[in-house]
């Protein structure tokens, strides 16, 4: 062959920039932009190399159709490799938010086991119902609902619930879609940690002799 061969790498560079910036900013969903998604699949290896420099890891779930960046696991105690600062912050969560995340995760697992639809949509009442059992009994129902509202908003902010646009002309209550990305963040490890925290707290309570 006497034709000179130029690698197509340069032509894909703009895509790479768009993808990297996009990934640094938010979760990428296949349904949002199919062409971008296929570029992502194509440039996977280069993206991985690139973000490794930033101590990040690309998590890509082809079946679920989402991709995001995650901090790489910190080196163990006896590991001499240097500890790098985190680029992606960890957000502290209150008990109410943690519990709601766990319960939503359960709902999602049940939903997957029972049905064939992909989108789990819950109304606000459904969500309140989900949590109600775990809340202290009190005469002030309204206050409880208000608190729930704040918790739900927090989860919306975190990006695990998506508020659906209410259909025009109806006064139906707001519906929320449980984003499937929740599965990646609230995984077995996270839940086990939450469980352990609760055990600790329970022990503390018992030891300090507080009784209700």
């Amino acid at each position, binding site marked *: 062959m006497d034709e000179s061969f130029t690698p197509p790498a340069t032509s894909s560079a703009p895509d790479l920039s768009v993808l990297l910036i996009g990934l*640094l*900013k*938010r*979760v990428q969903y296949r*349904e949002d932009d199919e062409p971008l998604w296929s570029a992502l699949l194509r440039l996977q290896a280069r993206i991985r190399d690139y973000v490794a420099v930033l101590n990040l890891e690309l998590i890509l779930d082809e*079946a679920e159709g989402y991709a*995001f*960046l*995650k901090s790489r696991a910190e080196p163990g105690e006896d590991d001499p490799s240097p500890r790098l600062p985190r*680029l*992606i*912050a*960890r*957000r*502290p*969560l*209150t*008990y*109410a938010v*943690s519990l709601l995340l*766990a319960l939503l*995760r*359960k709902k999602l*697992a049940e939903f*997957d*086991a*029972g*049905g*064939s*639809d*992909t*989108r789990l*949509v819950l109304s606000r009442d459904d969500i309140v119902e989900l949590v109600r059992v*775990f*809340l*202290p009994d009190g005469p002030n129902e309204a206050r409880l609902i208000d608190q729930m509202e704040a918790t739900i908003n927090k989860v919306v902010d*975190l*990006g*695990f619930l998506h508020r*659906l*646009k209410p*259909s025009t*002309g*109806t006064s*139906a209550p707001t519906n929320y*879609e449980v984003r499937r990305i929740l599965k990646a*963040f609230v*995984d*077995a490890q*996270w*839940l086990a*940690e*939450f*469980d352990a*925290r*609760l055990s600790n*707290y*329970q022990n503390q309570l018992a030891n300090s002799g*507080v009784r*209700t």
Partner: protein
Amino acid sequence: MDYATLDALRAHHPAWRLLRSDHAALVASFLHRVFVAPNVRAVAETDLAEALEDELFALRQRNGDEAFPRPALHYLNDWAAADKGWLRKYYRPGTDEAQFDLTPATEKAIAWLTQLAERQFVGTESRLLTLFHLLEQMRDGTETDPEKRIDELRKKRQAIDAEIARVADGDIPVLDDTSLKDRFLQFTQGARELLADFREVEHNFRQLDRRVRERIALWEGSKGALLEEIIGERDTIAESDQGKSFRAFWDFLLSSRRQEELSQLLDHALNLGAVQELEPDMRLRRIHYDWMEAGEHTQRTVAQLSQQLRRFLDDQVWLENRRIMDILHGIESKAIALRQEPPDGTVTTVADITSDIELAMERPMFTPAIKPTITDAVLQSGEMNVDASVLFTQVVVDRARLTRHIRNALQERTQISLRELITTQPLEHGLAELVAYLQLSNEIFRSVTDESVTDTITWQACGDDGHPVTRRADVPRILFLR
């Protein structure tokens, strides 16, 4: 068909429950009009609610306000609830709005109701012939003895030869009108039934998917056995009787030769005098496109189901789900115990879903907050005879007058930009009036804002020294629409 079965069906089957319902007439007529007659598969919540609202309005006009007092959406959700099961409510990817479709049971009930209306006549001859053909196909299709098969083919050839000879002699047998009508009615019914079947096919696929999932979820065996099961189940849907039959149908319909043939045959049939006497629904001419559309819908469902099932069967996901359910059980029991004293403060953390990178240079510069220090704050007693009217002669923008301006302008034309409007009706109160216009554009009138064009609006105002000055404001182009 014993008593117990029928009793259970009467209590549980959605179709029978629909027929028993007090609202049966409303449900069946409405759903027939919206879904069955135009062969529509999915309708968005808003559209369906609107259509029902119209229907309810008409009914209330006729039967009094008490007839159906609740709002349309309430009825729709009720019909889609698990205890009724007349509609399927689901969320399609890519839209935030709920979609509705008929359930196969409802379709059956509606089909039965339509049969109650008398038919012109029931074609029996064509039906017998169809049955006869079916039996023949079954015999020919299972015959493995080549001798017999060839015999059969020879017999057919002889029959064809004989017919050719008869036609050559000028003896051309023609179907009479009755036979034509008989066949056409049979065709119409079959074509409609085929359409109805798609919903049921889809429903069957969904049931199949559900059964597989249930089995996996309840699995108690070892991982090895599970994997074996999983591999066995991978293509359950495509390999089921339902899947194979559907695929064969789909391949048949998809061939372009078949489609052309169908179009020609349908055209020919619909142009026959005897058929036209029956006043057929002209949509029949494109019935095969309706089949294609319905088939495609089903095809998509099957593809989606297979993909999801595969994902669900992914052994890692499955094992993780299992573990998650175990842990969640622990969390739930602890949460119940801690109900009266939930922990305060931060309990867990989660990695941010985003990493907002804020560059130092992009942050706004520090601006010292202005703290007004009030040095002379001695209150002095006021004098009684101050002219208080000054307080009330501040600028008052007469919104009614502005509204009138816009209305008048829109009587002559369909749209007017804010700038043009102000050229004809100069601002009298300057900025305050301009703001009032902007408010009107949001509240009362239909308007569009074109961000790409900037209009400059000028007006005369009174300067600090009492001399008139010209002021200007740049706003994006705003168009008031009729």
